[in-house]
């Protein structure tokens, strides 16, 4: 017993004289290492129970796909609305006394208005022709020798103009000198606006519900994940792991869930796009090719997985903070 006893580990370890594990502090390297390990092991863990992972990812993907789908639908509705709105001309009837030069002057003035896209001058003769055609008794009115119709300006508002600005335009024109009457086929626009109003309100309600749903699904999944591994967490903390260390694999799991769900959701959205292509194309025919399907921009499709991963991380972070507080 005169010789100093060896430390009861094999010889290669005897060279290190300090006790414990922190023989050579290497915080950055070990931090990087554990991040890599956490990412890898959490991924392997998800892969090791493919059915469960797929179920969870699918639920999250659907929650993510729905807002995308609504975005798509609303975009297309808006386009349709615009397309419908584009056909709406406002007829400005000049007073019977006003001649062609007055009409041209007025037309030029109106063309400068920011909400006006184009102005067409209709002579009394053109008006009579049109009236005859429109009312279905061709030729009958041509027998009239004295054309009683006034000059009419057909004003087309700019395509994007809102109902309000068009209303203001109509009021402006009513106040112009030499104008007898302004006829705005406004019910059309009014009806459409009302319809879109309902649609927008509904989409808003649904979007709120869905945002809540995404958060709930991510949070719930991670919560359950952590709850089912409470034993593992307990063991890790018993052998000296810090909270950050314990949490790391769960945060990565959240990121993975989000990433996969995001990719799947983007895929769903593209599928919906394709499903919508056919009816929208048929609708397009009504407008003789004026309507193009509104598709999701590629940047958005790419952003979805990233945003979902961030959301997954966030959900995992929140829930894990709350649950680890209960652990010893």
């Amino acid at each position, binding site marked *: *017993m005169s010789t*100093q*006893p*060896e*430390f*009861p*580990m*094999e010889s*290669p*370890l005897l060279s290190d*004289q*300090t*006790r*414990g*594990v*922190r*023989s*050579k*502090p*290497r*915080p950055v*390297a*070990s*931090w990087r*290492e*554990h991040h890599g*390990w956490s990412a890898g092991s959490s991924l392997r*863990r998800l892969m090791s129970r493919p059915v469960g992972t797929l179920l969870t990812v699918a639920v999250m993907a659907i929650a993510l796909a729905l807002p995308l789908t609504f975005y798509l639908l609303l975009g297309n509705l808006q386009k349709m609305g615009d397309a419908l709105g584009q056909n709406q001309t406002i007829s400005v009837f000049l007073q019977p006394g006003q001649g062609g030069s007055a009409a041209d002057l007025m037309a030029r003035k109106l063309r400068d208005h920011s909400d006006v896209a184009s102005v067409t001058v209709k002579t009394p003769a053109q008006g009579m022709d049109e009236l005859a055609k429109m009312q279905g008794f061709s030729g009958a009115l041509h027998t009239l020798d004295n054309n009683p119709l006034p000059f009419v300006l057909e004003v087309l508002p700019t395509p994007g103009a809102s109902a309000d600005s068009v209303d203001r335009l109509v009021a402006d024109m009513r106040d112009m000198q030499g104008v007898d009457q302004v006829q705005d086929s406004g019910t059309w626009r009014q009806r459409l606006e009302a319809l879109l109003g309902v649609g927008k309100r509904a989409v808003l309600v649904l979007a709120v519900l869905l945002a809540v749903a995404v958060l709930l699904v991510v949070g719930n999944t991670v919560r359950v994940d952590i709850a089912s591994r409470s034993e*593992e967490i*307990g*063991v*890790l*903390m*018993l*052998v*000296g*792991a*810090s*909270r950050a*260390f314990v949490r790391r694999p769960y945060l990565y799991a959240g990121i993975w869930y989000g990433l996969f769900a995001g990719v799947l959701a983007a895929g769903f959205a593209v599928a919906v796009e394709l499903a919508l292509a056919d009816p929208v194309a048929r609708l397009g025919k009504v407008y003789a090719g004026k309507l193009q399907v509104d598709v999701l921009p590629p940047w958005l499709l790419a952003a979805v997985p990233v945003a979902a991963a961030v959301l997954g991380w966030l959900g995992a972070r929140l829930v894990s903070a709350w649950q680890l507080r209960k652990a*010893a």
Partner: protein
Amino acid sequence: MCSPLRPEPAAANSHKAPDLLASIPYPCGIRDWGCAVIRFDQVSKRYEGGHEALSQLSFEVAAGEMAFVTGHSGAGKSTLLKLLGLIERQSHGVITLDGQNLSKVGRAGIPKLRRRLGMVFQDHRLLMDRTVAANVELPLMIGGMAPAERNKRVRAALEKVGLLAYERQLPATLSAGEQQRVGIARAIVAKPMLLIADEPTGNLDPSLAVEIMDLFAEFQQVGTTVLIASHDLPLIKKMKKRVIVLDHGRLVADVAAQEVL
């Protein structure tokens, strides 16, 4: 540094640090030989249910000492060890560990403290979805040791408990005794300054139990303080180390190593 309150070990209690140890330079260097590493001062633990598991316990364990805690089932052995690992908190009294008042250790300090301990749990506490080697590696990974050195140490520890052949298996495929030894390997792999083992031989046959106890004694030889809860009286007698006897949460005997028959 000894805690100033500490009475001379040989005076207050009926035990003394073995002479042998006095000649070995302690590698850690932060404590004097024979100085109290563990100090219980009137410690009581009352669980939420109202059960008083420990009452007014006072004793000290010197640095580099090896001691057994024994007593009937439910005497409070595990509770005592849990207080040292901060798994439970005492209701009254002061526990000092290596000069640190455990009541003062906050949530952030717990992991740091536990990294300096090696704990063997009565219910093994292995991670069932990681291999034996990964389980043993845990404390080293948490400590941030480099992979190559980690691997060396893990193999050395597994070899010590005779399980090197089981390295790649999952704990669920081991017998209870083998699992218990994995838990022991995990406790020693980080070369802790204090080893706490709760019934480490409960699932081992007598000859293996002696081997494991000898392993703990080897650790003691290089200065590790060792505290073992056990109800295996024949084994305890064979080891000839200090024995602390509990009965219904009270310290009823504290037998120095030399006095063990």
